[in-house]
């Protein structure tokens, strides 16, 4: 949060400050519920069934500002989504950062089972990453990042050209690098081909 931002200007007023805290719950939480439901491809009826609520109540919960969400309701929703729920007092900076960083289109929290599965997969991919990087050659990879189902490796273009062959999804990444993004399975051998002329 920028100290000279319009938000900080507004927050200097105590009335707005209090209202801003409330708006995090009244406005943002409905979008979070909607996003979590959409990420699971559930209808409102499906969420209602899992949370033991009525569908119209879910519709109300998902409308920004429509309904006051109490802790009991939130706990029932957290249980239905099988995710954690954290309620704590925080600095305004943290509150504002959370609001700024919130993306209603991509917000998601994995369920407990999905979290465990993803962690196991990350371990698997991480183990394989070492072998993959060795194949590419230690000197070639400037940086690599690993997540649940994806490995990204940045390789100098000259090295890619030298390797010959390939079949990975690729995009030109600056003038001298190619970005490769691919699911890497255990035992899979990476093949790299020269980039097409830009």
């Amino acid at each position, binding site marked *: 949060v920028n100290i000279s931002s319009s938000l900080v200007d507004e927050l200097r007023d105590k009335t707005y400050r209090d209202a801003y805290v409330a*708006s995090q719950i009244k406005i943002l939480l409905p979008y979070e519920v909607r996003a979590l439901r959409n990420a699971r491809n559930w209808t409102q009826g499906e969420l209602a069934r899992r949370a033991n609520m009525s569908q119209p109540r879910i519709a109300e919960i998902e409308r920004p500002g429509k309904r006051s969400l109490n802790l009991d309701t939130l706990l029932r929703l957290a249980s239905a989504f099988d995710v954690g729920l954290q309620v704590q007092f925080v600095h305004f900076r943290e509150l504002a950062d959370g609001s700024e960083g919130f993306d209603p289109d991509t917000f998601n929290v994995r369920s407990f089972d999905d979290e465990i599965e993803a962690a196991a997969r990350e371990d698997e991919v991480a183990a394989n990453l070492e072998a993959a990087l060795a194949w590419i050659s230690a000197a070639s990879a400037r940086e690599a990042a690993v997540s649940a189902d994806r490995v990204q490796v940045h390789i100098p273009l000259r090295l890619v050209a030298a390797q010959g062959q390939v079949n990975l999804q690729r995009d030109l990444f600056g003038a001298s690098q190619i970005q490769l993004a691919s699911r890497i399975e255990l035992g899979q051998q990476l093949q790299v081909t020269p980039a097409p002329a830009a």
Partner: protein
Amino acid sequence: MPQGPPRADLDQFLNVLAKKAYWTYPDIDSLKGSKYKGLSELRWQSGRVQHRLIGYAEEATVYVLLIGCTHKQRRYDPTDALDTAADRKKKIKSGEATTCEYQLITGR
């Protein structure tokens, strides 16, 4: 613009909408009636009061806000909000009125 809690809710609401790739119901709804063709309303609530921002999509990433009002039991307050919005749109389109960029309240 409203003040106090409704204002904070509105700021939060607009910030969320600004991030969304597509606006869908119940956040937005088109107005009915040929008189108001092309106009839509952004819908949000603060406390027990339903608020509306009447406007229209100018292009993919521009939404023109024409007037703010409240809504209760199918009635707008002010009662002539829709007519005012339609009139303002006409004036903007004819060049008689102009628009300016709305500054979202953000921490950036």
